[in-house]
């Protein structure tokens, strides 16, 4: 009877120890897997940064100009007389009108402007 009890306790303790050790081993395995994934993620982020840099280099104004020159593509800005400014839309005109009205209103109260903080450059003083 005593022997049976002793063996039972021993088995339970041994099982608990084995479960704990198994847990620790799984933990270490997971950490290795995480490290591999993290390295892969980092490599991809680094690659993305390098690609971004390559795009910036390709969009370099000097390089674009050389490319256009090499392909004999001549681009010039239009002259002022060649540019026709399209009239603004109705909605824009209404906004503009509202703004003008507001400014007109503010004009009435302009006598109180001295109360509002305003930066002013000081005149030059001779030393």
């Amino acid at each position, binding site marked *: 009877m005593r022997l049976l009890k002793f063996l039972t306790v021993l088995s339970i303790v041994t099982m608990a120890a084995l479960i704990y050790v198994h847990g620790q081993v799984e933990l270490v395995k997971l950490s290795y897997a*995480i490290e591999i994934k993290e390295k892969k993620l980092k490599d991809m982020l680094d690659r993305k940064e390098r690609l971004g840099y390559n795009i910036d280099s390709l969009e*370099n104004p000097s390089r674009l100009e050389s490319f256009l020159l090499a392909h004999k593509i001549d681009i010039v800005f239009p*002259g*002022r*007389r060649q540019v026709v400014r399209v009239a603004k839309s109705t909605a824009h005109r209404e906004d503009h009108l509202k703004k003008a009205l507001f400014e007109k209103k503010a004009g009435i109260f302009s006598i109180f402007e001295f109360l509002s903080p305003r*930066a002013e450059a000081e005149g*030059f003083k001779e030393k």
Partner: protein
Amino acid sequence: MHSGIFRARQLSVCLFFFISLILLLLRLSYLEVVRHNFFSNLAQEQHTVSIELFPKRGTIFDRHMRVLAVNLPSESIFANPRQIIDKGGVSKTLASTLGLKEYFVRNRLSRKKSFVWLKRKVSLKEAAEIKRLKIEGVEVIEESKRFYPNGQLACHVLGTVDTDNKGLEGLESFYDRYIKGESGWLISAQDARRRLVESYENSFFPPKNGLNLVLTIDEVIQHVAERELLKMYEKYNAKAASIIVMDPRSGDILALANFPNYDLNNRGRRPVESVRNRAINDFFEPGSVFKIVTASAALEEKVVGLNDKFYCENGEYRVGRRILHDHRPHGVMTFKEVIEKSSNIGTVKVASLFGPERMYKYMRGFGFYEKTGIDLPGEVTGMNRALAKWSRVSMLAIPMGQEVTTTAMQLACAISVISNDGLLMKPRVVKEIVDENGMVVKENPPKAVRRVISSRTAQTMRDILMGAVETGTGKKARIEDYDVGGKTGTAQKVENGAYSHERFIASFIGFAPVKNPCLSVVVCVDEPRPVYYGGDVAAPVFKNVVDESLKYLNAKAPVR
């Protein structure tokens, strides 16, 4: 009797094992209890590693958030000489792979150390080759390297960093404390192969990445300015050249370039003469461009009217032992014509109407006695004498830009006073400092230093300088679609204590559009040959840069 002997032997064996057990238990207690701390720390040292986590250096953007400088991951090669047996063979292999001298590699591998650098921040190809070779004792470690996608664009503004990413010049140096960031730490467990093991006991202090700079520089205007300056620099075999494009309303530097320049990605190969940021590091006698100060002073002090007449002595004017010359003989001219046609004699006569005290006052007002305060390192100010040290003949030289020295940046600020209705603005290169998420951490707002001249005087000066371009010495700065104003200058350099007749500094300072200027430009060319006049050398650069820049900015201006 036999049972007695047997029992005695039994007891001796038991006693022997019992004593051995006691001794083992005592030894165990000694190791586990008495020497606990020692072995615990030893295990901790072997299994725990602390790794410094380097921060990412901040990125530098232009005003439209286009990248001008960025850090990218880069690998470096190191070796543990103690692990390398065949040093000769390994040296030969590494030297050919990394493009190094064999004796250099052998010297490194002969050191009695466990860590030596072989080559820092190598190319992807070199790193891949070293990894492929799998040489015992030679390993690759990751670092980061500074890259500049536009090569030499704005090289003097951006500056450079050293191998350890510490700013050495330009903005990289000036704002180093903001963009370098702070290291973090990772304290982690590692296995026998030095692989990190994730554990709840790990301590992680994240690094603080550097802040990013947003500049006032416009990448496109910078490119246009550099392209046009380079064309002129090569055409006239100049010794050096500088250009500054500024928004006079805010002090924003839209472009700043010097020649000779260098490729930021190949710092090690740059010539010595290309290092200086001449626009702020060098001062020179400005010559006729300085007449804008004299003219502004005369108008502000109300000692002249636009149509007041001055006799310009037909090109030669003797004052005591000194003879003043004009580049072309003139007779009687109005004050306006004196400035438009850049008469030295007429300018000196105008200056005599208000005297040295007021000349000095306006020189100080325009900022020629102080640094502009631009946020770039190494700025100097000209060596100008205090009023008390002026000689009797100083007023024969200073009003026309001799006996006075200035930097190109000071000239840019001076012409901006006229463009900006008389207000002197502090120039700025950095608009704001932002964090990784784009949140503004520190702003650098435009700052008005002082009012130098009245708005009316500034308006009058703009009209006079427009005349200088329309009918005066600056005709080659004229633009078809916009009204521009400016002043030419051709200053003799000093050689062996006297003014040279062979070496000149050609310059042009101007602004556009005249009615509401949004650009101020200074072009300075050191020793152009064979042509050396500011109107011929510098004015066309101004014209091309301003023409393209205004169209790019879609500036609104009355059609001519």
